[in-house]
């Protein structure tokens, strides 16, 4: 089988970046010898402006920022793709449906170049950090130096597993070989996730240092430094977010190929691929806010000041931008599902409900979007009687936001239920009772979520404001699980028509592109705020940033940087997909 993009023996394409990473880590260890190993550790260095090498015309912070952002985008993509590739391959084996196997292989094939780029951008990031922030890297290496071994080990394992998995796809396609192939895929995911966990230890230590005293003197307990306040929540948050992100990028790829499909078969294939990928993306997006709650709670637990900087200080407006983007994501996801009603034989019957769902999703979006404190001129503040709008002010509080996000999740799920019914028609007489039960569950959930939000949010002690979000989430999750079970029971023995894949309007594919672009931009923005809440600290409260660029940039500046990065990243991704398309062409030519 000719390989899509690479020439020469397997491994050549990635061996260079792997070598770069390995050499850089060894170089880092050599450059920053752990003079403290086995003896007393030194405190965090007190740096001055002269400790930061400069290159004329180059902003060190911007260079590190962009390199880090590119690396994180590529890494998120290449960590996510193998997760759902293995899942799809497994489903294909269980269902004995070759479509899953084909699409899983195509996912992996289009992303293979991104592995090399992840390693290259990782090398660039490490190089930039060593060059521009040697004092910081020396201090971090004095604590985390031994973890470089794990990093290198996971990297090598991931590389070996990736190439075995990719090149062995067709050779290990049957019987026990297929199971072995799945096991290799599992190994690929474990090593990739382990790699991320190691990198997260360094990053989270900079935010919530532990295992050191107030002066930054390391206790010698590496695990304590690794297992800091944010390590576990960030591991979970990134793991879930990566899946959502990978799904969105593959969905956009499928959308692009759908738009250029030359025949019905190709159109149907990419429609199915786009749907599957977007389902994964949105499915992973749903639990993400809850992982985010945990992450934020740990930030507050470590430092209230850091939490306040994040949620109530200069970055409060950033969360309004986040709300806008997540609102756009939900609207796009719902729109895509509504367009999908046309794939099923019974979809027309549900179109009439779309306007009501749209109304609820849009209203929830507007509540989420409403800021609490308004930045006003003194005369404006006098005119409305303070910093809070007299009518809209209460909508700016967290209970209103929690209520809105649960409504949005609930009604997006309703869109999904209706979408599923577009190709199923239960025939049993008792179906109307199940329908009534579902309607009752939804109504009760809406009432309960509203009551919890309004009563506990506004008419009881402050302590309950946040606590009430837990039963709200529990209500949403309960309804989702209960309705899925009911749907399954209703579907048994009913009429079921196959979806007419490919029967989608072209405009629906732009919803998938919007989801991918929005995810990319949002990741960049949230990455900025995560890092920026350290403010003028390299390691929060332990090691000050004394460089000329220690100040916290404005949101507007960050937005411009994120936009520039997004354009560059997406341009590279398009190039990768183009290469993938060429590879597919040559493969098809040979097969034909």
């Amino acid at each position, binding site marked *: 089988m000719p390989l899509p993009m690479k020439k020469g023996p397997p491994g050549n394409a990635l061996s260079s970046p792997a070598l770069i990473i390995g050499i850089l880590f060894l170089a880092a260890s050599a450059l920053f010898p752990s003079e403290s190993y086995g003896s007393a550790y030194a405190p965090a260095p007190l740096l001055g402006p002269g400790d930061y090498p400069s290159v004329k015309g180059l902003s060190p912070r911007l260079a590190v920022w962009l390199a880090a952002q590119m690396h994180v985008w590529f890494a998120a993509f290449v960590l996510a793709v193998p997760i759902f590739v293995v899942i799809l391959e497994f489903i294909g084996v269980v269902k004995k449906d070759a479509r899953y196997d084909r699409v899983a292989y195509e996912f992996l094939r289009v992303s293979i170049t991104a592995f090399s780029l992840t390693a290259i951008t990782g090398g660039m990031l490490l190089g930039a950090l060593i060059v521009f922030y040697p004092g910081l890297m020396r201090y971090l290496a004095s604590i985390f130096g031994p973890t470089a071994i794990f990093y290198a080990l996971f990297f090598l394992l991931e590389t070996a597993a990736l190439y075995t998995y990719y090149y062995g796809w067709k050779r290990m396609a049957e019987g026990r070989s297929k199971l072995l192939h799945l096991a290799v895929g599992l190994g690929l995911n474990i090593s990739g996730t382990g790699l991320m966990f190691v990198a997260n230890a360094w990053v989270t230590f900079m935010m919530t240092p532990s295992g050191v005293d107030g002066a930054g003197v390391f206790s010698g307990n590496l695990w304590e430094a690794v297992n800091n306040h944010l390590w576990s929540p960030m591991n979970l948050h990134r793991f879930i977010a990566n899946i959502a992100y990978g799904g969105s990028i593959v969905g956009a790829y499928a959308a692009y190929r759908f738009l250029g499909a030359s025949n019905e078969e190709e159109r149907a294939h990419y429609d199915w691929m786009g749907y599957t990928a977007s389902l994964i993306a949105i499915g992973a997006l749903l639990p993400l806010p809850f992982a985010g709650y945990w992450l934020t709670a740990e930030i507050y637990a*470590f430092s209230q000041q850091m939490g306040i900087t994040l949620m109530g200080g200069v970055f409060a407006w950033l969360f309004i931008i986040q709300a806008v983007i997540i609102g756009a994501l939900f609207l796009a996801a719902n729109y895509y599902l509504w367009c999908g009603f046309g794939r099923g034989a019974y979809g027309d019957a549900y179109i009439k409900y779309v306007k009501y769902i749209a109304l609820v999703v849009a209203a929830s979006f507007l509540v989420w979007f409403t800021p609490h404190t308004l930045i006003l001129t003194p005369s404006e503040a006098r005119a409305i009687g303070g910093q809070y709008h007299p009518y809209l002010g209460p909508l700016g509080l967290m209970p209103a936001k929690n209520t809105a996000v649960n409504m949005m999740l609930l009604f997006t799920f309703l869109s999904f239920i209706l979408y599923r019914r577009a190709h199923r028609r239960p025939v049993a007489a008792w179906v109307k009772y199940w329908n009534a039960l579902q309607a009752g569950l939804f109504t009760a959930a809406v009432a309960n979520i509203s009551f919890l939000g309004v009563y506990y949010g506004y008419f009881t002690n402050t302590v309950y404001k946040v606590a009430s979000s837990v039963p709200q989430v529990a209500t949403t999750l309960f309804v989702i699980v209960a309705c899925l079970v009911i749907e399954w029971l209703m579907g048994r023995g009913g009429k079921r028509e196959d979806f007419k894949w490919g029967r989608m309007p072209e405009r629906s594919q732009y919803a998938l592109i919007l989801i991918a672009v929005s995810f990319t*931009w949002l990741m960049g923005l949230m990455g900025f705020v995560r890092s920026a809440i350290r403010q003028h600290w390299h390691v929060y409260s332990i090691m000050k940033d004394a460089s000329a660029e220690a100040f916290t940039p404005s949101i507007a500046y960050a937005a411009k940087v994120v936009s520039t990065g997004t354009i560059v990243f997406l341009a590279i991704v398009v190039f990768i997909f183009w290469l993938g398309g060429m590879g597919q062409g040559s493969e098809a030519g040979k097969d034909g």
Partner: protein
Amino acid sequence: MGRFARAAAFSLFIIGLYTFYSVFVIPPINPGEPPSESAASGGPATIEELLALGEEVYNGKGACSLCHTRDGGRAPALDDSALAAKARFSAPGYSGKAADVESYLYESLVDPSAYVVPGYGVSGTDDRVSPMPGVRESSIGLNDTEIRAVIAYLQSISGAEITVALPGEGAGE
């Protein structure tokens, strides 16, 4: 090429929209410069500087003003804390070791459960446990200079005598 141009134009439009919103619609806020090295490490040299640091910590790093508000917040207002101190460390529920206003305020910052103002304890503890974290703990992380600056500030807003000594003047706890 047509579809590529359309998809690219659409993507750029979305990115442009988000950028426009962030740059022109969101109020322009420029976070302050990092504190200068002298202010951060040198410590206050005069009572005025000590009070200014105390006010800054009270409203900023210490996060005191988030809960200690006049209008029914999670914690009692502190605008008469120095004046009320004597009655509190003489109260039956007091379990600390303070003997004067300054040491009481110090103790209530680093060990808030030594005395809990009735009605402000953790639910179910009969006002024996304070929900407030000690200010030395990592969630707040005040150093000794900052704690003494906050005490001076509390004495100042209470209209009481400022007894806190400047750093280096050998203040007794």
